């Protein structure tokens, strides 16, 4: 877990390499582990703390270390410019710690509620749930719902590649023996999230920011958080709720929390000019989100966001089966996740607070020292998937797909989720059909879930169209 925390924190310090990319890079190495508790400790530890350390770059150089720290820049960087970087950093670490602990508490408190609900479900309900998960992530993870849905469908199609064990049919393998086993999840994850981020980082080469001074107010920042405890609590609730909803990642949580702070706090004129409340709101919510994220991931096998989709990929690969088992026979693994979230947050905050000054220097590593080792690590990781030279070809194909998806505004998370959930989705659909024929479609819970699915698809589209019409009239004017 400490290794996970250190890697997660290091990734946070380095601008441009986000949590999902690192999780993707680590997948091939994690899959060689036999003990599921080790996998949980490493990956959940890494995932839990990425947002804590990413405050460094957001505050000091105005580049978000992760997508969850974008709103931190709005007040954190002006504070650094005013000579209060230390105050902003300490406030962000303490807010992250308390937000992270709140998220773990929410996950723990949700278990008694989820258990009877999950145990009452059978294959038809689980099929609709997996469909709902992919659709929600597709619709909400970008600003193009149709593209998101298409990406999810493409992901499920990719999951069907290989020899079908039910019928013995070769599916989309084009007589290539390498494809009989299907497409490795690691290669999809590395291609979609590893290489495109590296390309982005390499493209920034001329724009390495100037360092701001460490400044003053380190202790004051800690007290600031306790002084604004009510704001922290509210924004942590927002974070945990956003995490619980599939498809809304930390990049949404911090903006929602920041917007809430600006709308509800008194004396708002300082927001955006270096108000510590902006830092507290953003950082508290993005860490609380992690606990909320694991609720649908563990209970239904539907990840709350991109990072948990990657963690889920590793869980499935090492034999951990998210779903009802996580609340019954494998409850110890669920508690391992909760405790990892708690301990990882404490360790990461301690590391960041104790070594804040030396860590600030790491933020300014030039791109040429970061890009080549990461590329090497990605290629090694891809080759380690099957130790076959075709692994590298598959990596390059998915890298091209990921690059173009990013370039043309296609969300990549639904595609990965489609690949992760595709096999389960197909199994649940087939079981529902063989057990109940078409009668499963009129089961009460299935009808409720279908209604929710339709509402969740239509509602964002309607909202999006409503928002577009005033924009258009404004543009025409």
């Amino acid at each position, binding site marked *: 877990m400490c290794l996970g925390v250190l890697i997660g924190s290091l990734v946070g310090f380095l601008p441009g390499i986000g949590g999902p990319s690192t999780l993707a890079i680590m997948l091939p190495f994690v899959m060689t582990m036999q003990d599921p508790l080790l996998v949980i400790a490493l990956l959940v530890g890494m995932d839990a703390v990425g947002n804590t350390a990413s405050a460094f770059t957001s505050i000091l150089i105005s580049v978000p270390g992760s997508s969850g720290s974008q709103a931190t820049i709005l007040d954190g960087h002006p504070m650094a410019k005013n000579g209060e970087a230390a105050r902003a950093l300490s406030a962000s670490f303490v807010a992250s710690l308390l937000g992270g602990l709140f998220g773990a508490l929410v996950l723990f408190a949700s278990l008694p509620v989820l258990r009877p609900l999950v145990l009452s479900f059978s294959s038809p309900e689980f099929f609709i749930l997996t469909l709902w998960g992919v659709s929600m992530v597709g619709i909400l993870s970008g600003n193009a719902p149709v593209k998101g849905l298409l990406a999810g469908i493409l992901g499920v199609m990719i999951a069907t590649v290989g020899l079908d064990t039910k019928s013995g049919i070769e599916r989309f393998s084009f007589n290539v023996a390498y494809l009989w086993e299907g497409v490795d999840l690691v290669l999809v994850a590395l291609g979609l999230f590893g290489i495109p981020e590296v390309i982005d980082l390499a493209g920034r080469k001329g724009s390495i920011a100037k360092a701001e001074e460490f400044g003053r107010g380190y202790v004051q920042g800690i007290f600031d958080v306790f002084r604004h405890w009510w704001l922290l609590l509210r924004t942590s609730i927002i974070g945990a709720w956003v995490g619980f909803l599939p498809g809304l990642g930390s990049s949404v949580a911090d903006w929602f929390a920041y917007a809430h702070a600006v709308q509800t706090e008194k004396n708002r004129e300082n927001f955006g000019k270096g108000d510590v409340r902006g830092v507290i709101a953003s950082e508290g919510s993005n860490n609380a989100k992690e606990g909320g994220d694991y609720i649908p991931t563990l209970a239904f096998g539907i990840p709350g966001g991109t990072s948990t989709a990657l963690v889920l990929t590793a869980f499935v690969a090492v034999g951990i089966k998210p779903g009802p088992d996580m609340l019954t026979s494998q409850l110890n693994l669920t508690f391992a996740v909760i405790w990892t979230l708690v301990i990882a947050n404490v360790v990461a905050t301690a590391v960041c607070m104790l070594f804040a000054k030396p860590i600030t220097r790491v933020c300014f590593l030039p791109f*040429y020292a970061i890009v080549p080792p990461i590329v090497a690590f990605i290629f090694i990781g891809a080759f*380690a998937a099957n130790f076959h030279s075709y692994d590298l070809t598959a990596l390059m194909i998915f890298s091209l797909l990921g690059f173009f998806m990013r370039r043309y505004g296609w969300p990549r998370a639904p595609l990965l989720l489609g690949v992760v959930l595709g096999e389960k989705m197909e199994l649940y659909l087939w079981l529902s059909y063989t057990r109940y024929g078409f009668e499963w479609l009129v089961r009460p819970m299935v009808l409720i879930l279908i209604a929710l699915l339709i509402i969740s698809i239509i509602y964002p589209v309607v909202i999006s169209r409503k928002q577009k019409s005033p924009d258009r009239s404004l543009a025409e004017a």
Partner: protein
Amino acid sequence: MKVRAIERISFTSFIGVIILTALFVAKDWPIRASIIVLLLGSVGVILAAIQLILDCKAARREVATIARPTFEVAALEHEGRWGSLEIWVWLWGLFFGIHLIGMPIALPLFVFLYTKFYGGRWTTALILAAGTWGFLYGVFEQVLHVPWPKPWLGFLV
């Protein structure tokens, strides 16, 4: 701007064609193997058609667009004349380099050349390359005993 719109339409068409081809191939399979492909593929083809119409409309509409907040971090516009083509050349070079001279030589060489090419010091480049080689040798050769695929220039390893 027009070029980007054409690229966008081409990419959507590409995705649509993939799903359509999958649907066409799956229609000959038994139902237990094709059920999910037929169900989702049919929806996919309709969605691809809708997206294509949306892309064409967006390309034709010449009114100024208003920037709205989005929760997806947008890809950066790369600096320099060649943009992201430069890093792609490096990546494909590494890919072919691995096939040509093998991973244990190509990876450290790539790390060294990239670092040096963009202005890194000799010591930085050598340390990073040595670290990469050390990782490959230590973990893959000594611990995992990985049989490296034979490179095209096999006499080098």
